[in-house]
């Protein structure tokens, strides 16, 4: 798809005609960005890997991630949502240097 993950990727028949759309591209469905799997924007970039054995649960990664990709359970980081992670690397940078639990690996290594 040429629209870079922007598209709903739905066939025409499933999309509403103009009369049924809200004016001015207003959206009244809060929180629907979870349905747009923008993780492949990482493309050939880098993927953050989290080593939970090294992690001290400071939550710097969780609060710094612009895409809210750090999955919490009982107040603890348990993993990364790769469906939405765009590979910006902020988490790895924010992870305290003494801990260094997040490393960025070339996407090519996972193919």
């Amino acid at each position, binding site marked *: 798809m040429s629209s870079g993950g922007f598209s709903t990727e*739905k066939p025409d028949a499933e999309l509403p005609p103009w009369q049924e759309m809200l004016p*001015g*591209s207003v959206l009244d469905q809060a929180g629907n960005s979870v349905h747009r799997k923008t993780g492949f924007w990482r493309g050939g970039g880098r993927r953050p890997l989290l080593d939970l054995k090294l992690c001290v649960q400071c939550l710097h990664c969780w609060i710094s991630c612009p895409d809210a990709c750090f999955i919490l359970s009982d107040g603890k980081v348990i993993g990364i949502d790769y469906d939405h992670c765009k590979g910006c690397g902020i988490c790895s940078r924010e992870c305290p240097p003494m801990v260094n639990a997040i490393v960025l690996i070339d996407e090519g290594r996972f193919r």
Partner: protein
Amino acid sequence: MTASRRRSKTKNEVRGMSTQSVPQDRADSDRSRKEVVLSGNMAVAHALRQVDPHVFPGYPITPSTKIMEMVASFIANGEMQCELVAVESEHSALSVAVGAAAAGARVASATSSQGLAFMWEMLYIAAGSQLPMVLAVGNRALSAPINGFSDHGEAMGARDSGWLQFHSESVQETYDNIVQAFRIGEDRRVRLPVMVCLDGFVLTHTSENIFLENDEAIRNFVRPYRTEYTLLNPDRPVSYGLGDPPEFYMEHKMRQQAGMERALQVIEEVGAEFGRCFGRHYGLLDPYRMEDAEVAIVILGSEAGRVKNVVDELRASGKKAGVLRIRFVRPFPDEQIVKHLLPLRAVAVMDRSYAPGAVGAPVFQEIRSSLYEYRGGAPHVINRIYGLGGRELRAADVRTIFSELDSLRAGNESVPAIRLVGLRGEPLPNWRDQQAFKMPVGQS
């Protein structure tokens, strides 16, 4: 009807921004309206005082500075509750307007010329987001060369930005248009921003006796503002300004277009209601002595008055001349214009703007294009570009144009198709060669 349409009808009142509307009382407004002397800018400011929008973001520019000045003093004197936002540029002024309108506020501003040019990016965002707002534009020629006097260049440049565009003939009409603009733009069938143009200096700075209607009557006419999509309603959260992928963009453009199409009807409804309330009736067009006319001038803005005077003279000497003044450039009322022009033999479209490299100026292009379907029986159409950079249009110039129309009717093909009125020196040869586009006359 789908779910999303049904949802759009749910009640959604922004707290503190709406009250119940009170029924019209015509007798009231008759008794308490005042006849006052106001310039165009002052009339706009008084209309805004009476409507009292929630937000007025502005950046002053000649010749519309006075509007913002007066709004500021009305607020300082406690005559308006409006929030005036002084910003550092027109780009920011319209950005504030877009934000405030998305939050559910009623918004107005004023600008001119370079100011409108600097608003360009936001013009499209306001229109594309279908955010109603009212912008008074004191028309002034664009630089370079820097000039400062009136023409419609900046307004014509913005005609495809998705805004409705009024052109007023008099100070009274400017005042009336500002009041009607809120109703038209905010109508749920339209939901588009409206530009109300008044010629710089000729209207902005010239004083005229006008009727200033009763504040309460104007407020009742305009009604409290309600919008169903606002950023300030936590019960029904919405987002504005989202990315619109290829499979939705065209449909959203069609929604804008639908607003424009429906605006033609809304303009007539609101104009008629305004007439019932205040005694001054407005339609899409202002035909003057067109009933049995054979030749006519089509024009917009303040110079229509001068052309009407010449038409009176010509009528007195037995010539069947008329004027068709267009009140709206967007939406363009092509059907109504064609209805008036088809019975004629020759028409001069007078544009106060200039489109270098184009075949004539904007209004001329659209009128000639609207008449194409009727080419067998359509009148000759010529373009007369006048008043650029405030150049005076004299009665003698108008008489010359009418005599050109007469000689066109008589089959004289040497009448130039496009001409700058009052230009010193010969026109370019390729313009002369177009020779009135050789349409056969009267073969319907």
